[in-house]
Each structure stands twice: as C-alpha cells, then as structure tokens.
C-alpha cells in the first residue's frame, strides 16, 4: 500500500472510485440483490450526501464505503488502493487509517472521558500514549470542545456528544469521514450546528460523505447522490448549498419535509 502512495500523488487521486459494485445477500434459498451495479467517484475535498429511503441499498453502500463489508463483485478503490479483495484484518487496518465514522447515535464509550473517546482510533495505530493525548486534544479543540475534554458522555449534551464523535472521526486524519444520519438524534438547531461543523471541515479540504434520508441535510452538501432499489437514480450538484443560518432555511425545510412525506407515503402504498 505504501507503493501506491509513492507513485500516485494523493491530491489527484479520487478518494473513492466504485465500478459496477454489486452486493448480493443470501437470504435463505433466495438471493437478495442490495446493490446492482453502482458506479461512482468521489474526489478529494468533496462534501457528498447519499440519500435514499430505507431498503434502497443505502446502508449496504455505506458499509462497503466504510470497509465494513466487501462487495460481491466490482472494483472499489479507496484512495487509490483496491480494497475489494482485502482480508478481514487488512480491512480493519484500512478503515482505521482511511475512514472516520460518525454515527447517528454517537457511539461513545460511556465510561470514558471525551478525550479518551477521541483517543480510541489511535490505540489501534500504535501511537504512544502522550501522542494520543496530544492529537485527541487537538481534535477536541477543532470541534470546539477543548473545555469538555474530561467530561463523561453523560455530562454532555447531544450536540456536544456528536462533536466528540466527530473529533474521534477526525483524530487520525482520515481520507474520508463517513457520517451515517449524523443529525438523526439531534433537534433541528443542534443538527444545523453539526452540519455547520461539517461545512467548516469540508472547507478546510476534508472529504465527507453524509448518508441521510433528510433532504434538508442533503441540501447542505455540494452534491447529492440518490439511491433507490440498489441503483443510483440521480447524482447532481446542489445549487443552493451556500444557504446558511436561519430564516431562509425555513422554506426549504418545509418544502423538503413535504417531499419527504410524499416519498414515505408512496413507499407505504407500495
């Protein structure tokens, strides 16, 4: 993997390149096709939303992007390296190096301080204790929580917890941050703060992929990829991503909620 790095300059390489990715699950006697030929490239520095209703294959795609699962067929290059054929332990190392996860329910360890939680990914990279401390403190500072380093998760608000989780995703300087419904457990204004943070990180060059079914979250990204029934049905840049703040957001949120409601309604009829 070092050789790849030496020959191809990091900046010019797409962070993610998927070519005809298929994923088939065995469900008893029948095969269920979760992904049917996904082609997609995400360049360095992008802020992408992946949208789709439940059952669309969105989660499967997320698992493959996060190196938690391998495709049945197709090519997946993560930062220039073909990871479709890696072993379990190589996949672990790969996600430990390249991916920063942000989850809907934060997934912080309850009996660890914020700082210790942020340190966690570094443990699996053989960083020394003092090095871990230093980097974790920097990451916490980056998300504006340096004052809460020694708080336990239950002493933090939901938004603060998600910030800690983002710091944890940042701490090892991954090629990609994968956020799975990062605002799903947060109220609207806190959710917006988190999206602002993603925005900021992205403007500093961090590649971020947000998986969501909330259109108002997708609106904040530069590019939206919509998935349905295991296929990409649209892949478009967002024109008004730079809408920030308060009153102007009301309209798109209402508007999108209506669309979202219609989508859900259509699904339940189906």
């Amino acid at each position, binding site marked *: 993997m070092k050789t790849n790095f030496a020959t191809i300059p990091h900046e010019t390489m797409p962070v993610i390149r998927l070519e005809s990715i298929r994923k088939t699950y065995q469900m008893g006697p029948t095969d269920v096709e979760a992904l049917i030929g996904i082609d997609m490239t995400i360049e360095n520095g992008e802020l992408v939303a992946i949208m789709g209703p439940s059952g669309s294959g969105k989660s499967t795609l997320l698992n493959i992007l996060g190196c938690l699962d391998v495709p049945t067929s197709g090519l997946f290059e993560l930062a220039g390296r073909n990871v479709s054929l890696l072993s*379990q*332990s190589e996949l*672990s190392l790969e996600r430990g190096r390249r991916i920063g*996860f942000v989850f809907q329910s934060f997934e912080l360890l309850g009996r660890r301080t914020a700082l210790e939680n942020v340190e966690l990914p570094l443990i*699996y*990279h053989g960083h020394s*204790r003092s090095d871990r401390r230093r980097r974790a403190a920097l990451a916490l500072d980056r998300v504006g929580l340096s004052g809460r380093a020694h708080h336990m998760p239950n002493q933090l608000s939901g938004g603060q917890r998600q910030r800690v989780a983002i710091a944890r995703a940042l701490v090892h300087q991954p090629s990609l941050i994968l956020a799975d419904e990062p605002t799903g457990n947060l109220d609207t204004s806190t959710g917006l703060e988190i999206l602002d943070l993603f925005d900021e990180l992205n403007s500093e060059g961090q590649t971020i992929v947000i998986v969501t079914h909330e259109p108002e979250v997708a609106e904040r990204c530069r590019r939206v990829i919509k998935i349905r029934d295991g296929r990409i049905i649209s892949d478009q840049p967002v024109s008004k991503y730079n809408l920030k703040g308060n009153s102007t957001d009301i309209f798109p949120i209402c508007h999108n909620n209506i669309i979202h409601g219609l989508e859900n309604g259509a699904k339940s009829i189906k």
Partner: protein
Amino acid sequence: MSLLSRPAANIENAVTQLISHATRSGLTILGIVIAVASTIIMVSAVGGFTDYVSDFFQTFGTNALWVWPEKPSDDAPSQGRIVMNEADVKAVTDGVPSLRYVSPLIRRQSQSIQHESRQLTGWIEATDSQYLTIRDFKIMTGRAFSPIDIERGHHVCLLGADIVRRMGVGEEIVGNSIQIEGRKFRVIGLLSPKGAFMGVTQDDVIHIPFRLGLKLYPSMKEAVVITGQANSDHVINEAKSQIVRLLRRRHGIGPDREDDFRIASQDEVLATFKKISLGATVTLAGVVGISLLVGGIGIMNVMLVSVTERTREIGLRKALGARRRDILGQFLTEAVLLSLMGGMIGTLIGWGCCQIASRHPKMVPVNVPWWAIALGFGVSAATGVLFGMIPAVKAALLNPIDALRHE
C-alpha cells in the same frame, strides 16, 4: 506484531472496565480467591506438618539403621528359632565395612525405677558407648559411658529428660543413685531432650551398659537389636545388603527362605513418610483443581455476559480499526487480569491465614513455600487464559455491522 497486541492499552482498558464493574468483578473472582487461598493454606499446612515430622525422624539419628529379629511373614515350618545375639553384633561390627558405628541394644520397659520414695516406669535401653553417636543423643550434664563402664559392667546410667522431670529432680541427681529392677545405679549424666512427636517421646529413657541389660533381662539375650550408622547416606543401601548377606549366612537361611530379621533405616522411614505427604499434597491439589475449575467457569460466564453487553462497543472498536486480534487481546487481558487479581487476593488471604495459624502455640510452624505462591498465580493466570478464550474469541469474531446494530 504479536498475537496480543498493545498490552499497555489493553491493561489500562481492562482496569477501567473492572473498576467500573467493581461489584461484579469482586463476585466473579471469589471462586478463584477461595481456590487459591485454600491451595496456599493446604500446601503450607501439609508442608509444615511434613517438616515437623521429618525433623522428628531426623532425631532418630542421621544415616542410622536398625536390625531386629522377626519371623518371616509366611512363617515357614522349618525356620527354627529366631535368634539375634551378641555374636551377630560382633559379626556385623567386623564384617560390614560401610558401617561407621555399630551398637547392640536391648530395649525393655521397666516397671520398677525408683528414686528415694518415688516409683516410676520407663524405657531401659542397654547399649554401649557408640549408641549416643548413632542416635544423636547429646549429654546435657555429666558424662557419657566410658569404654571401661561398658567392659566392666559398672552400675552407671544416663537419664532422659522425661525421667528427670517425672522424678522431680534437677541436675543435682548426677552423682546420686537410683534403683532399677532392685539394683542400684549411679547417675553419671543427663541426656538433652529430643522432643516428642504426637505424644510419643524419645526422652522417656534410661541408658545402662549393655552387659547389665543382659543381667537384668536374661530373656533378651537372643533378641538383641543391632543399631548402626552408615559412613554416608550413599552407602546405606550397600550396608543393608551387606548385613542381609552376612546374617543370612550366619543364620543358615537357604536361598528359598525369607530373612528371619528386619532392617529399617532412618532415611527409609523418612522417604516413606515423604511419599505419604506427597500423596496428600497431590490429593489436595486435585480438590483445589476442581474449585479452580468452578472459579474459571464463573469467569467465563461473566466474560460472556460482558461480551454480549458490549457488543456495540466491539462493533465500534472494529469500525475504528480494531482487528480481531485486538479485540481478542482486549477481552483476554480482562479475563486474565480478573483471575490474576483473584490469585493475588487468594494468596494474601492464604498467607495471612498461615501466619495467624502459626501463632497458635499448639500448631506446627506453617510457612508458605514460594512455589505455592508461584503455583497460585500461575494457575490462576492459566485459568484466565483458558476460560477467557471462549468469550474473547466470540467477541473477536463478531461482525462489525451486526455488532453496531445490536440493541
């Protein structure tokens, strides 16, 4: 990288985990604590007892052996009379070069020992001057038999510590007379006490010259015991076989007949006892092994619960880059740390109990041998690895996607 990577981080993590579930951890290790504590106590008690008994056997005399007449077990009809006499002693003295000292011994219980108005019973040992050396008796006051006392059959005697005590006299008895079987004997010395073992004392004894023993107990003339001391512990067996050959020839025993005498040596008695004590230790170890097994199952149980409880944590750690071996190491470290803690507490309790027991005046000194402590730790660590393995493997094999979805 080794199988169990990042030990420092694992230990730190395990300590945090165990402290945060202090009650559960405590209850979990209880089995191990009890098992290890009882190992230490049992091993030390058996050890202390063994040392005590060994010390007692040592007082019989180093490299000492005894030969006494005894009917063979099958009691063949044409065996003839069973005899051991002074001539046999003389033959052994001259014909067994690997013996340094040889003494004849007549041992009888006397009902009639008298000092002033006091009448008592005690063991009379009629022997010669080398017997003290063979049996490792020391003279506390006065002097031992001289060769002339033996040769001329002087009416002199040495008193054992118990006899002196029961007579209610002190050192002033030396030089005075006592009466044995109606004969007057002058006390020329007092023997140092050798101590008692389980109520059997070696100090309830009066030594008199061999020749006088023959006079007091003429029937013992052909039931003389030969006592001797080998040159070194290497030649004890050689001495024994030399004695057997010599006596069989002298007693005219054919090759198809059994000996009409028995030989016992101090080292043989000691070896037999040590075998018994080893047997006891092994049996106890078996019992303790079962309790360790139970303790280990307890640890496995709690670790399995812990793995289930922390499924999401495992999923998260895997998502953050932990490999299977990292998760394995994490849970194995926890299990081993748990059982080592149990081992440590058990050792402390066992050691403490031994210290307290040793303070009791009627208890033999109980010292905890270093290997018992090493064993306690080693076995508890092994228990942790053994019983921690199943939960740890279970954790390591969890699929991160399913684990993260676990409720």
